[in-house]
């Protein structure tokens, strides 16, 4: 039984279709990514799951309960950390966390706050007012708030935005550790492709309010079937002759003494390509294979090429 079931979720804003019959499941304990360009419908989906936006139609079941009718009860077991939101600026970090601790009915609240502050390495900020924190510190406080009730379902919307690479890495480690310890189900959105690939077991790739594909990062990358092979030849090699070989489609120069080939089926074509280049008099110095990244898929989706 999936922990989260979304069926035929639709949402219009005026004449714009933000979500077009969106359906997907998230299993218990899964780290699930929502990926897609701006306007794909990621935030709308998350905001509907938080009860902040009402959908036009569709059904949501969380913890095997109907979200529309059991929303308040369900939200007690959920939480969110969204980078672009804030807590009360005039309150200190500890006061803000106490507020949400009470709202979620957390027991041993002081101990829980101490544990979270330590987990995200911001214990020294406990008595500082939120309005005086840097954006990176602020983001980590928001994460502490998101974990205050040990949620069964955690929604993370761009939650590492504004963190420097070192802190972002520590934050990802802390989130992963928390998720493993508590077996929390996480719904995660980010524009950082490496982050999504590193953290998420499965990813739903959204475009214009529809799910393009739900799969692992490796399989989503296969939406771009071809790979780029760059072959560097020893100096003096006649590249023009190599480019005019029969069947050598889409070969193009790429710097001095280098040719770039786009292979649709690299596993079958690479061996044949290299053999033919050698036979044609090319002395190969180096071969580099560039596989498509999640970012390549993202860009192609954003440009409507997929």
């Amino acid at each position, binding site marked *: 039984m999936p922990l989260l079931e979304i069926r035929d979720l639709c949402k219009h804003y005026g004449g714009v279709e933000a979500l077009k019959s969106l359906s997907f499941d998230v299993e218990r304990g899964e780290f699930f990514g929502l990926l897609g360009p701006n306007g794909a419908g990621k935030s709308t989906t998350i905001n509907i799951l938080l*009860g902040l936006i009402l959908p036009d139609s569709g059904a949501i079941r969380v913890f095997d309960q109907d979200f*529309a009718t059991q929303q*308040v009860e369900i939200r007690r077991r959920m939480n969110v950390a*969204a980078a672009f*939101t*804030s807590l*009360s600026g005039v309150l200190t970090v500890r006061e803000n966390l*106490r507020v949400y601790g009470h*709202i979620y009915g957390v027991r041993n609240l002081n101990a829980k706050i101490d544990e979270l502050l330590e987990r995200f390495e911001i214990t020294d900020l406990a008595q500082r007012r939120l309005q005086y924190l840097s954006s990176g510190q602020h983001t980590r406080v928001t994460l502490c708030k998101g974990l205050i009730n040990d949620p069964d379902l955690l929604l993370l919307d761009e939650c590492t935005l504004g963190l420097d690479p070192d802190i972002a890495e520590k934050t990802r480690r802390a989130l992963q550790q928390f998720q493993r310890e508590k077996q929390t189900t996480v719904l995660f959105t980010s524009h950082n492709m490496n982050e999504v690939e590193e953290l998420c077991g499965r990813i739903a790739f959204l475009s214009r309010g529809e799910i393009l594909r739900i799969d692992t990062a490796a399989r989503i990358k296969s939406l771009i079937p071809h790979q780029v092979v760059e072959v560097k030849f020893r100096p003096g090699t006649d590249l023009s002759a190599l480019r005019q070989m029969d069947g050598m489609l889409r070969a193009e120069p790429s710097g001095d003494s280098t040719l770039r080939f786009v292979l649709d089926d690299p596993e079958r074509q690479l061996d044949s390509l290299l053999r033919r280049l050698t036979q044609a008099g090319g002395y190969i110095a180096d071969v580099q294979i560039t596989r498509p990244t999640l970012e390549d898929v993202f860009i192609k989706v954003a440009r409507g090429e997929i």
Partner: protein
Amino acid sequence: MRYRLHQDFTCTASAVRGLVYKFACICFHSLDRIFDIVYWPVISLLLWGFTSTFVSTTSSSSQVIEFFLGGAVLWSLFWRAQSDVGTFILEDFWSRNIYNLFASPVTSLELFCAIGLIGLLRCLLSLVFLSLLAWFLYTFNILLLGGIAIAVFTTELLLFGWVVGIVIAALIFRYGLRIQVLAWSVGFIMQPFSCVFYPLASMPRWVQVIAVILPTTHVFEGLRHAIATGELAVRPLLTALGLTFVLLVAALLFFQYALRQAKKHGLLTRFEMA
């Protein structure tokens, strides 16, 4: 998608405690939120105190000062109650906390209970301060009205203040921060129609039609009766209570409608809402 209205009328003590704690922290950390407990009420008391002192020298009525000061002190409670609802909700809009607040399991009822509790405390502080000041400056002793009368007047004015505050909060959710000025100004708009300093009968007929549907009118009519006779008039107070109850139910339903519209149009996720 089906939606059950009753969900927003559940209430847990821990959530109310959390919200009261938040509002209390905001008050303690913010000088202007402490200052506004007394600032406008004191201005009003001074204005009407000096005016009534002057009028009493030219009037045959010996109770002019009591009428004016009693009105000024009690009106400040209504104004305090209605503006507290609006401004405490606006705090969350200003700090962009509205997203996290409404994504949490907090219900409308819990929110209003918490604002009511902190508002009650602020109103009582305001009442005590003004009463002492009125006695010190004008030897006006509000306690002469009697404990029961003060409790009844205060309760009715606080309740109706919250009703007006809830309506303003609903309008803020529906139309955004561009109408935030209502949180402070509605009290001033309602004052001329509430018979705070003059009897209902002294107003033009068309104004009476408006005034008679405001619970505040009946409270202040009751206040003047209590000052003049030393007795509590039950009828205007029951009228005020009945009107307040009806308007409270209507205000809560209107708030739910406005909140639902805000969610339908995605306004809770657009923090500026201007």
